[in-house]
């Protein structure tokens, strides 16, 4: 198999100027993993600072309602409010290890931007975050948080002015400042070795879940679900279970409905293509132009997806579904009222899918949902939407 490939997917489709940086990154990452001091430092930050391990919560009310055993993996309890910090602490330490003087990141929902700003602040590295104007508008709270944390938020006014264009701008910055700057990518996307690096840092989610569920139930779960934007929380949860008899389900942004064309359901209805340095499923037109997406959640509003998910779909190991904005809002309210947990709109996609397919589960089934983030950032948006969806 070629370097950095997942079946046909992955690879390094970037301009020549960045190739030296990817080679440097791959080499440094290999060293970093082998360096005990670095690994100890990372583990210390993850436990004492970010709050790992996160709880696995049994949801009594939801279980009763859905007639199966529902557990939530509580990534929402992490510092910063989402799984993103697993990755940003890892990569920021790697950047330091490499002697880089500046971090850049893209952000959609703002969660990755916030998590990068946090890592930059605590590790003493300046942070610039690219964010589409549309997302700045709908995730104002996170913009303010990033600025409070000392990061600079750079508005992106090109293209669709969302996550996709923020990534484009981050790449352009990186090409320009390639010697001094570390591009801290926020999901399992981009050219090799990024999908691998981000998966490694996020796999702690699945590893912990494995131990925890065995402890409380004496066995592995029957079904595990996670929402999929770029796919980092999902792959982090799924990866340690890939060789087990566990049904794995990724949930994409169905937006206004797959038939309307206004969605972000890349794996459900996309096709093979190249975006942001990797071969993967993408949403594109007949000529290979990348299409506009729509989702109620900025973090899933993306026309690409990780290469490894693309392969896992093709070989049938993971199933991918989409739920609509409307279903997501209902799930958002449901979890808030039933369990006292306000989920991120992204994570509410996974909840919505469980609600949708609950009649397929047995009462003894163990269903684990990765609650990738908390919903504080979304309450303004949800309040504004009211009953309009």
């Amino acid at each position, binding site marked *: 198999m*070629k*370097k950095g490939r997942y079946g046909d997917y992955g*690879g*390094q*489709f*970037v*301009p*020549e*100027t*960045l*190739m*030296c*940086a990817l*080679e440097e990154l791959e080499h440094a990452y290999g060293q970093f993993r082998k360096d005990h001091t670095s690994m100890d430092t990372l583990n210390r930050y993850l436990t004492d600072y970010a709050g790992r391990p996160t709880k696995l919560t049994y949801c009594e009310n939801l279980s009763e309602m859905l007639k199966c055993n529902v557990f939530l993996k509580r990534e929402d309890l992490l510092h910063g409010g989402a799984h993103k910090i697993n990755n940003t602490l890892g990569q920021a330490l790697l950047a330091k290890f490499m002697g880089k003087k500046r971090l850049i990141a893209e952000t959609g929902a703002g969660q990755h931007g916030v998590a990068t700003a946090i890592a930059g602040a605590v590790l003493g590295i300046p942070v610039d975050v690219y964010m589409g104007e549309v997302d700045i508008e709908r995730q104002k709270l996170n913009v303010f948080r990033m600025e409070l944390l000392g990061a600079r938020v750079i508005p992106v006014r*090109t*293209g669709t002015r969302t996550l*996709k*264009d923020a990534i*484009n701008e981050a*790449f*352009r910055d990186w*090409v*320009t*400042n*390639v*010697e001094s700057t570390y591009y801290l990518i926020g999901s399992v996307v981009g050219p090799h070795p990024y999908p691998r690096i981000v998966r490694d840092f996020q796999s702690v989610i699945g590893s912990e879940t494995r131990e925890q569920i065995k402890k409380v139930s004496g066995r592995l779960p029957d079904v595990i679900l996670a929402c999929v934007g770029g796919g980092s929380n999902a792959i982090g949860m799924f990866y340690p279970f890939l060789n087990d008899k566990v049904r794995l389900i990724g949930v994409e942004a169905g937006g206004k409905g797959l038939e309307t064309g206004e969605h972000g359901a890349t794996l459900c209805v996309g096709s*093979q*293509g*190249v*975006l*942001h*340095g990797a071969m993967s499923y*993408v949403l*594109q037109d*007949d*000529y*290979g*132009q*990348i299409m506009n997406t729509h989702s109620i959640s900025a973090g899933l509003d993306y026309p690409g997806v990780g290469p490894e998910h693309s392969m896992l779909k093709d070989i049938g190991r993971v199933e991918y579904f989409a739920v609509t904005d409307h279903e997501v809002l209902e799930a958002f309210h449901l979890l808030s009222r039933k369990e006292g947990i306000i989920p991120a709109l992204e994570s509410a996609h996974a909840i919505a899918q469980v609600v949708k397919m609950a009649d397929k589960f047995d009462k003894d089934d163990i269903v684990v949902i990765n609650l990738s983030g908390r919903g504080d950032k979304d309450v303004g948006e949800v309040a504004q939407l009211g009953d309009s969806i």
Partner: protein
Amino acid sequence: MTRITDTFQHLKSPAFIAFLVAGDPDLETSIQLAKHVIRAGVDILEIGMPFSDPVADGPTIQKANERALKSGMTPDILFDIVHELRKDTDIPIVLLTYYNIVFKRGIEKFYRHARDAGIDGILIVDMPYEESKDVVEIARTVGLNQIFLVSITTSTKRLKKIVSLASGFLYLISTTGVTGVRQELEHSVFELIHSVRKQSNLPLSIGFGISKPEHIKPLISEGANGVIVGSAIVHLIEQHLDNKKIMIDEVSRYISTMKKATGLLKDIKG
């Protein structure tokens, strides 16, 4: 022998290469611009296929891509334009594109369509040599030159691989960063020319940031075989969106001036 190789062999002075985005600012004007650019004396024309996500391009060419896509540009229309230009010209035409456009159609089909339209070489901006096995093979079979980028960040090890796959000419990127006009060229570009020259006999064309006649002279004295100007031309288009006639006149005049800069130098030197 392709038109590209032939041109570099027979040119008396270094090649002046102009870049336009197909369909910018609109389909009709774009064809007119290309014709005038050729008439104004460019040695090689580079045509860019617009892409929704041009990560290697700065704001000027990004906006040109947006204008071109809005005007309905597709590979088929681009091939039609080249076909039309071929009626009056024999200069080499190189297609610049991002990989997804090629991949979506199928490499072989895309390359055949390009060749049949009269295109001589293809440069895929986001395709390093590691990923290029298929395209290089197909380019050879179909009879097109596969053009590769070389950057100041390219290591000697990579350079050797690139040189072994490239044909037509090598496109040397004068600076780190995206496309766009720059006031000064960085000194590192001269070292780049020297180090690539040690590895390859292919013609070396320098691009990214070149906008003034003064930029051209030192490049040529250091051994460049061609200079590529893109953003500066696209910028003129952008400045005259409200008057197509002035736009075309200004672009033509600019091309003549720049072309003269490559020619004069040769005279001085030779």
